[in-house]
């Protein structure tokens, strides 16, 4: 391969990586609810992807491959910080929706409650529910990304949704939302 073609292919790959950045960041943020850690995870993931560029067989599978790299980075971080990262790093402010400060308080409050419920899930359930709901991966793809059996994906997802349902319909939440409506 000529150097020029190599550079051009690498450049195209970089552009495609860049297109995945926003989605990766959203996913990372839904796992850790901490902007700084999400930034780190995405940077780390994109850097590793550039290095391992050659390992990607199917260009169509790029996003799944990136998510799989990011899941590894995230698990490494969790291990390195002796599993305390997960609980301690959640910044309450991160549960608010900083992306749209002009939105009314009800919307922000709803977003905060949903994020709080997601943050309260065990890591494994949180990963599955965000990969399925946000990234719209199939169960088989999620199983591959997280390197767990598909049955585990299904049971984690199901447990996650039951927990979310319970968290979001507790009476205090309902009362508060009605107050906000008024």
């Amino acid at each position: 391969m000529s150097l020029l073609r190599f550079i051009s292919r690498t450049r195209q790959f970089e552009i495609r990586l860049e297109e995945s950045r926003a989605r990766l960041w959203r996913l990372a943020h839904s796992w850790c609810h901490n902007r700084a850690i999400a930034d780190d995870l995405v940077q780390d993931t994109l850097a590793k992807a550039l290095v391992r560029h050659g390992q990607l067989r199917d260009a169509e599978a790029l996003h799944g491959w990136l998510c799989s790299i990011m899941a590894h980075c995230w698990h490494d971080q969790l291990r390195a910080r002796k599993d305390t990262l997960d609980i301690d790093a959640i910044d309450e402010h991160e549960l608010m929706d900083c992306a749209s400060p002009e939105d009314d308080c009800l919307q922000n409050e709803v977003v905060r409650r949903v994020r709080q419920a997601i943050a309260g899930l065990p890591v494994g359930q949180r990963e599955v529910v965000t990969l399925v709901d946000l990234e719209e991966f199939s169960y088989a793809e999620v199983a591959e990304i997280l390197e767990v059996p598909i049955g585990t994906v299904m049971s984690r997802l199901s447990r996650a949704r039951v927990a979310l349902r319970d968290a979001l319909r507790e009476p205090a939440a309902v009362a508060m939302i009605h107050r906000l409506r008024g």
Partner: protein
Amino acid sequence: MHPEVSDEILSAYIDNELDPAERAALLDRIATDGTLRGRACELWQLKQMVRGAYPLPQRQRPAHAGFTAPRWAHALAASLLLALGSLSGWLVHGRIDADRQFASQIEAIRSDGGRVVLHLFSDEPARMEAALGMAEQLANARDRAGRPFRVEFIANGPGLHLLRAGGSPYATRIEMLRHHDNLRLIACRQAIARLQERGLDVTLLPGVEEAPSAEGELAARLTQGWRYVQS
């Protein structure tokens, strides 16, 4: 007596993971089992809430201060949480009530592949009128590639009134709509059955199809990535 449907199966249904046979069998049960239908709706609502709570970060704000997709997702999430919280039913708060917002909706649908479900759950004249107006605009809209939008107009609950022969005040406009190949008019069989239970004769206008349940049809479309608009 059927065995109870597990949460795992219901999750697989709303995530579009069932094979066609399993899906058809479940839809049949959903059509006759209100509790099961409620569970499926609740799960589907949860899914939408999770999606609404994590909008994609915008690299830059759009130049015009329009009604952008993430905000719309927020509005839907808010309406869903209200519906879930108050247990008041199916998406009753998410209506779009301004033309300007609807124009932005069309733009969002266009950039999202041009597939949309339009949902009517009301027989208030203003709502029916608005739904028809939206359906007419959507039926004539085209996506970025110049293809017509694919539109499903789903009516349930009191909204069924719009599609009934002998009752609908808008039969002529419905007749015009049904000649659009890219638009399907769908009535909820549950809603029909409820009217029939009250001894009413239900005849649908020509060209109106029936779905086992509006919720099932909506959930199926939305999990396939269709946009949702409620009048």
